[in-house]
């Protein structure tokens, strides 16, 4: 299958603005050509995929996933996550370094590359840890890890709490043109109960995390970006105040980007209901006003990207009293349909919605993917943006099943996923 011919597809490429009915030819893992009426005659040896009018776009680039390998393979591993990614139309995922042991030295970056190649379904890249053991104290070998292939630096789910460490990380990473990503939440105001501060937390008797915890950390980080001239990315923005800090920083011309995750524009704190631990996230699900602000941030471009924030947890980590339960939800297999809700609800044009999960994250991490152009690696997703179905966690390829979206009616079905010119997922029959 060295040649794949897509016929009768709607070619949508956010990076170039292309949106036209046409055809696309893959040869030896690369996009050989694309455009309207490409084929006088389809090459005989090509595997033909008739899109029947579905959208063909770059495969998704998911800039924030937890793969749980090494260390917690009972929750997820490279193989199960890769299958989940392929089913979700994700061609590239970028793993957080907070594994056991954490990815805090070059050999571990190489481990990820090696394992990713061995599984070989989708492209897996990794961040390096900013501090040794993600303990927030000593800087890691940022330069050597970048040379080994790390695409950015973060302590993952841990906030870099010390302003001094953050200052040094921002200035030092600048040497290598690397971005520092932070989970922005003032730790002193954060409790492990994982609930937004407000009426629901009060009624449930859970200690809340005020929305200000996010803005306080972001405010600090903006000052440090200004001080150091470093490049900074805020992960999963969840509050109105947080969106406002980033918006103001961008206006001031700081080198700052941010993302959010679908849960923060598709759900609010009421999803917790009666202690539903599947709705426990970090940062917590916020108020309806915050949710709207996240949507506004996506619409006006303050929020650059959407990441799935894939955080698999086994039952034992979730079937616990709320305060003790682990934080985080699955994301790989719901990233596309939940992002398309923004399109169906008229918050974003299709191009723009796709940009947030393809070219935008790729560009801000310097990845050579997320675009559909001649000569590019053939990472593609064919999907029907209108096809309705209900999310069904039992059908997920992920090893864990922790999703609050089970049963949610959505539109947007992945039909075919192609990575490096190979079909890795084909659901046209289902």
């Amino acid at each position, binding site marked *: 299958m060295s040649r794949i011919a897509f016929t009768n597809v709607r070619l949508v490429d956010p990076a170039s603005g292309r949106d036209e009915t046409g055809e696309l030819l893959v040869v030896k893992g690369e996009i050989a050509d694309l455009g309207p009426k490409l084929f006088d005659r389809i090459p005989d040896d090509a595997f033909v995929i008739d899109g029947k009018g579905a959208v063909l776009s770059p495969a998704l680039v998911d800039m924030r996933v937890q793969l749980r390998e090494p260390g917690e393979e009972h929750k997820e591993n490279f193989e199960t996550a890769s299958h989940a990614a392929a089913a979700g139309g994700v061609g590239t995922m970028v793993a957080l370094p907070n594994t056991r042991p954490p990815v805090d030295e070059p050999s571990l970056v190489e481990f990820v590359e090696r394992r990713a190649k061995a599984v070989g379904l989708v492209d897996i890249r990794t961040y390096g840890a900013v501090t040794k053991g993600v303990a927030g104290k000593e800087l890691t070998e940022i330069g050597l890890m970048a040379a080994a292939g790390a695409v950015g630096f973060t302590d993952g789910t841990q906030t870099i709490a010390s302003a001094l460490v953050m200052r040094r990380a921002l200035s030092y990473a600048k040497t290598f043109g690397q971005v520092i990503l932070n989970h922005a939440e003032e730790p002193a105001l954060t409790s492990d109960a994982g609930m937004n501060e407000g009426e629901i*937390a*009060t009624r449930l*008797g*859970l200690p809340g995390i*005020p929305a200000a915890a996010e803005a306080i950390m972001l405010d600090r980080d903006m000052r440090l970006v200004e001080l150091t001239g470093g490049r900074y990315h805020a992960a999963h923005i969840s509050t109105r105040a947080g969106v406002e800090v980033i918006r103001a920083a961008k206006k001031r011309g700081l080198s700052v980007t941010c993302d959010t995750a679908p849960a923060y524009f598709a759900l609010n704190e009421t999803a917790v209901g009666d202690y539903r631990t599947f709705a426990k996230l970090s940062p917590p699900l916020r108020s309806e006003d915050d949710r709207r602000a996240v949507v506004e941030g996506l619409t006006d471009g303050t929020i650059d990207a959407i990441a799935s924030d894939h955080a698999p947890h086994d039952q034992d980590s979730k079937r*616990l009293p709320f305060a003790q339960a682990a934080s985080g939800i699955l994301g790989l297999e719901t990233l596309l349909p939940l992002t398309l809700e923004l399109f169906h609800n008229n918050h974003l044009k299709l191009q723009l919605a796709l940009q947030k999960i393809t070219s935008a994250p790729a560009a801000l991490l310097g990845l050579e993917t997320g675009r559909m152009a001649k000569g590019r690696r053939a990472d593609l997703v064919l999907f029907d943006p209108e096809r309705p179905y209900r999310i069904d966690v039992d059908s997920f390829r992920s090893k864990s099943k922790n999703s609050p979206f089970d049963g949610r009616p959505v539109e947007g079905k992945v039909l075919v996923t192609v990575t490096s010119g190979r079909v890795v997922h084909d659901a046209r029959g289902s």
Partner: protein
Amino acid sequence: MAPDEIVGLLDLAETYVDLNRGADKKASVLRGRTQINLFFEPSTRTQMSFELAGKRLGADVLNMAVASSSTKKGETLIDTAMTLNAMHPDVLIVRHHDSGAVKLLSEKVNCSVINAGDGTHEHPTQALLDALTIRRTKGKIGGLLVAICGDVLHSRVARSNIHLLNSLGARVRLIAPPTLLPSAADRLGVEIFTDMKKGLIGCDIVMMLRLQTERMQGSFVPSIREYFHFFGLDRQKLALAKPDAFIMHPGPMNRGVEIDSEVADDIDRSLIRQQVEMGVAVRMACLDVLSRNLPEAGRNAP
């Protein structure tokens, strides 16, 4: 619970008050039933009260001291529940240090479960016994002005009482420093005062809460001395409430912290001992009502 259900329970509890005051304190509605008291958090008075209630109704009562049991060996809450469930208890009385834990456990067992306090969430039988105490003393609950004072933030008693008193038509005031109030306390249908002297004016009932130092991480109040000065109930502050106002406390009391011994021990004003007495009666009423939903004797559950 709907107001008429609450009133029904209180009425039933009244009959048990009489029974408990008689010489023969034994009834038989729970004969043959097994009641397990599962306390993940130590408590003397609530556990005793439930034990006595169960025994007086004829149940076989077991106390499971969780501190010395398998949870220390790493067993999860759900495994503990499943294990106990396999022994076919009829009623589980559960106290747990995490909000929502009792609900989680109740979903996994097929017997009745009574919440004896979960984290900082709810303590329903305490609210019921407080209501019964108030009703017997004042003759009514509707229209009364009740002040709940002190550590509201960490108090499941306060949350349950606000809920219950509001549904029975009382007006509730919370009196505490802002650091001991939950962030959205104003959304609970109460008036909030941070000045105790103003808050107590016109109150019929002054309910004091224990300062829960064991739940506190970090500094909520700078010192006991300062706390007692501004938020401790003494004779001087009590004088601001109605002349016939009564004092309540869910216990155990920290004398000299939230309440002065002089008022706590004033038999004309303090209802603290009645609360303990009503506790047994209310819990008997709860067990009685729940037992009516249990499978009939002689017919085993599937």
